[in-house]
């Protein structure tokens, strides 16, 4: 279980997160949504230890991890798929997946993760994670990488970005399978209604504040009340 208590963060004199309180229960699937610039990525980075909040507390299974660095949090069981995956010259897809899994992996094992994100493993496993890969390919490799970690909490920042419609259904399957197999908590930052559909809980963030927490049906109407709200939704409304 992850608990955020009174998290505040400012940068350049601007309040980016204002007193965030949020709990992600074990084995829960939550989606964070909200307009661009509302602070979603910042929140994920605070959970992963990449950004240190100005105040507030972060607890993982009751243990205070606020002071822990990125490495310790990763080892404590937090994984994070970046909104913008990082490119590396010379580091291959297999290297990344192997590092993520924390153990020697056979090529067949590593390929399994790629297959799950709908990539033909033999075409990619020895490729360098460099600028020769397209945005959508990088995103899927990023997802395969965090899947290999099998941690109790996994954060995905806009995993659907750059992924075509055909692969999208695959992605939904990936999240559902992960949820079942690891029995861990999953937090996805997303604007996609089909991802909201499978969430246990939807959290609406706006201007650095939690505006609403509830089911998709409860939260969606709130979105349309917001000035910029519905424009960010690709999936249409109901």
């Amino acid at each position, binding site marked *: 279980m992850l608990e955020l208590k009174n998290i505040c963060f400012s940068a350049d004199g601007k309040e980016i997160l204002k007193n965030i309180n949020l709990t992600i229960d074990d084995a829960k699937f939550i989606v964070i949504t909200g307009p661009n610039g509302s602070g979603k990525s910042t929140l994920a980075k605070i959970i*992963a230890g*990449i950004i240190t909040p100005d105040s507030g507390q972060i607890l993982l299974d009751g243990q205070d991890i606020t002071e822990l*660095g*990125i*490495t310790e949090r*990763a*080892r404590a069981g*937090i*994984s*994070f798929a*970046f909104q913008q*995956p*990082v490119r*590396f*010259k*010379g*580091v*291959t897809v297999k*290297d*990344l997946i192997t*590092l*993520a899994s*924390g153990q020697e992996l056979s090529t067949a094992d590593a390929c399994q993760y790629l297959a799950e994100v709908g990539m033909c493993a033999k075409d990619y496993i020895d490729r*360098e994670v460099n600028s020769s890969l397209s945005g959508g390919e990088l995103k899927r490799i990023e997802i395969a*990488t965090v899947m290999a*970690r099998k941690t109790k909490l996994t954060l995905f920042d806009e995993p659907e970005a750059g992924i075509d419609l055909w692969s999208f259904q695959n992605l939904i399957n990936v999240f559902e399978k992960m949820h079942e197999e690891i029995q861990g908590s999953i937090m996805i930052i997303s604007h996609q209604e089909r991802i909201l559909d499978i969430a246990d809980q939807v959290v609406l963030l706006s201007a650095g504040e939690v505006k609403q927490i509830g089911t998709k049906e409860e939260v969606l109407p709130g979105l349309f009340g917001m000035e910029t709200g519905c424009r960010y939704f690709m999936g249409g409304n109901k």
Partner: protein
Amino acid sequence: MLNDIVKNLLQEVSGMMNIPTTGAFNIRNNGKSEGRHSTENIDIVPKADGTGLDIYVKPFTKNEDVHIPALITQDGVKEVVYNDFHIGEGAEITIIAGCGIHNCGCDDSVHEGIHRFFVGKNAKIVYLEKHIGEGDGNGKRIINPQTHIEAEENAYVEMDTVQLKGVDSTKRISSAVLKDGATIVIKEKIMTHGEQYAETSFDVNLDGTGSSAKLISRSVARDNSRQLFRSKINGNAECYGHSECDAIIMDNGVVAAEPEITANHVDASLIHEAAIGKIAGDQLTKLMTLGLTEKEAEAQIINGFLK
């Protein structure tokens, strides 16, 4: 019989475990030949004045390797070696050169290897060169290789050069002149530590129509080490030239890149790219989110970069 120091160094430089009994090779140690062998197609002939070797590869020789490692395992050895490669038309071979210096003494050891390649029409060669310094003496390990290539029509030359540890000072000078349709690919990987200094200089003349050159340098400068990368490509015909210098600096490392590209022909297409900087912060962050420490992440990134 080779002693263990020589054997280890030999293996590091050339991959050979001992003096082979077949194939074309010459093993040089402290200025003397420890073994030499020619084959039907590849003749290795010492120069009359003792300054090096002439290596003759018959036209259309295929699937053969030439090993010519040069080792220095005593301190205070200073040598200049001239090796000339005469590659016959249509031959396709791999040449494994390289130099290792083991210096436990207090006097500097210096190897200057001057290699000239005369590559015949349609020939295809891969030239591998690995430079290593070891031993704990105060004497410096200095390697200054020169590679001069003349590539005839449609010849293909690939040169892979690696220097990852222990060489205190190096000045590497490479030049190439390419005729019609000839191609050269040079890949260089360098890592410097401590107070080391490495200098690289490429000088390529693309004289022939359809000739092309690709120079790729990847380097890491750590501690107080310094590196200078110079490349000069002259496009004198319809040709394609590309040089790329990619360097990571750490600690107080210094890297300078001085590219020069000159198009002397309206159909010459020349590109230079240079990027120098420390390891990108987001690369470290990504690997740390996978559970690596900052040091481990750094090692992985450098490893991949120089792979």
